[in-house]
């Protein structure tokens, strides 16, 4: 039983290392804005759901949404639509996907999150889609 503690510590440190590396990235809200408008919104306006303004949710709601990673009420994931493979699949018809084709998935997700948090209803600069 005692030997379980160092193992648990190892796991914690591993997670810490991962989170430390991730937190080193300084998210680019402008890149998030372009991707959100050019990929997310351009698809949403073509679908029945319509566009979703960043100011439609609070910061907490956006954080929860991204953390839960459930797109279309759980039918698929948010990360899927930010992934390199998704960008590769639409880049011939979507210039934002083409431009950011090589951006690491987590960085782009952080960029989008930064834009949404900043533009949230209670954010520092509530934003619309346009």
């Amino acid at each position, binding site marked *: 039983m*005692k*030997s379980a*503690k*160092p*193992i648990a*510590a*190892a*796991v914690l*440190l*591993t*997670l*810490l*290392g*991962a989170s*430390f*590396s991730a937190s*080193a*990235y*300084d998210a680019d*809200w*402008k890149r998030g*804005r*372009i991707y959100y*408008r*050019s990929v997310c919104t351009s698809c949403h306006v073509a679908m029945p759901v319509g566009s979703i303004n960043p100011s439609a949710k609070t910061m907490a709601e956006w954080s929860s949404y991204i953390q839960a990673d459930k797109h279309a009420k759980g039918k698929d994931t948010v990360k899927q639509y930010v992934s390199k493979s998704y960008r590769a699949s639409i880049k011939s018809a979507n*210039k*934002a996907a*083409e*431009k950011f084709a090589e951006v*690491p998935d*987590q*960085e782009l997700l952080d960029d989008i999150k930064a834009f949404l948090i*900043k533009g949230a209803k209670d954010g*520092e*600069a509530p934003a619309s889609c*346009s």
Partner: protein
Amino acid sequence: MGLNSLRQSAGCALAVLLYLFSVTTLAADEPKPLKLTTTADHSKFKELQREFQSGPEVTKACLTCHTEAAGQIHRTKHWKWEHLNPDSGQTLGKKHILNNFCISIASNYSACTSCHIGYGWKDANFDFSVKENIDCLVCHDTTGIYKKPPGLAGNPVIKDMELPPGSGKIVKGIDITKVAQKVGKSSRDTCGACHFFGGGGDAVKHGDLDSSMAAPDRELDVHMDATGLDFTCATCHKTSSHDVAGSRYNPTAMDKDGVHIRGKVDNSNPATCVSCHGNGPHKKEERLNQHATKVACQTCHIPAFARGGVATKMSWDWSTAGERDAEGKQVVRKDDKGRVIYESRKGTFTLGENVKPEYFWFNGDVNYTLVTDKIEKSEGVIRINWLGGSPTDGKSLIWPVKVFRGSQPFDPINKTLVKPHTAGNDDTGYWKNLVWDKAVETGMKDAGLPFSGKVDFVKTEMFWPITHMVAPKENALACVECHSKNGRLAGIQGVYIPGRDANKLIDTIGWGIALLALLGSLGHGLMLFVARRKHQGE
């Protein structure tokens, strides 16, 4: 050493190894994020590692390293809001001119100077020599959260406050320390914070600059396309010593200097099309380059302005302002799209999207009717400014222009335009009390100008050349847009435009040549026919 100790030691070693593995593996998988657009992370500078309580505190910290910046800023139009036109001798700039939309900054400083690159310009006594009054953040913010609301004389809101006072509306304070630690190059967002909102709202004055240009697509602006070339404003408005090139007060209408070459001393305007594209940019169609000797690039390549989904104000009639409802309250009316077209405090507006510009010969000369100039209402529409140019001066091109039309207050006794006190929560502010006499008296007193006590209204026009919202080449104007009877250049004089113009002599000669060619062909055919019959008969 017991078995447990061994297990614990092994566990610890495993923990350290896993930690190192997690960090090094992640580092190996994805390169360390690195900002390539700047050489400095300002959050690492000890001068900025403190809590700031005001804008001037931040500026003081900036100037400890950027020792020459204040001196540079103090020389610029953006700081002085003043420009001496070397050609006309007129002293221009927002500090002096008036326009026919929001009219003038005199006595309205606290509202208008939310777009000044400084802190505290609340009246005519602002000290332009104080270094700490410079606002570095308004141009160098990268967070997008830095805001300077009207009414605070260019100061941002640091702590939550009720604005306007007594309104019950709380404006949240911004984290100015965060903004200071994340400064960087200017961007479309920072320039746009003022230039997209000139006149008190999105797209009000500029028809070719509005919030849609913050992250435009290719169709809206081929240069600023956020997923393409992604130009910032400063890409063209190349800045030297904090002085931003390109000015509406002193524009370059015809650029004969060609492309700017790195390393070559060139004092010409870098914010022209020619400075990058040269004087013969059409590689396949020499005929189009010939057009460029008479027609500005913008004329064909900006087919319409206000194309980004934001309507621009086309006219502003102050003479209808002042209505109150049955309860004595101010009135706001909107059109069927929910856009404001009447306000008691401002009057009546017309709005436009996808607006075709009007076209004029323009040689770069811009003159203004100043508040000290005499005007006559009987002369009809008064031009707030006018563009010089003619088809024969060798300096003019045909330019697209947004024409602002309006009706604004003037003094019928002194025969001058006037500067009313509009913004302000005081007894003479027009927006609060809707009384012109008091508002104009206060404004003119602040400007140090005479006022008779009488107010009338005069129709006015203002002319701004259009130069942004450049469309992709496939969306440039088609020939028939101009080469037709009632085309876009129907009002342009002094140049023969095939398809539009008819000259009896040229037409007679042309049709005569065509008729002769037809007769020649028929005659030649007839002779061949006769010769063949003759040959067959033999």
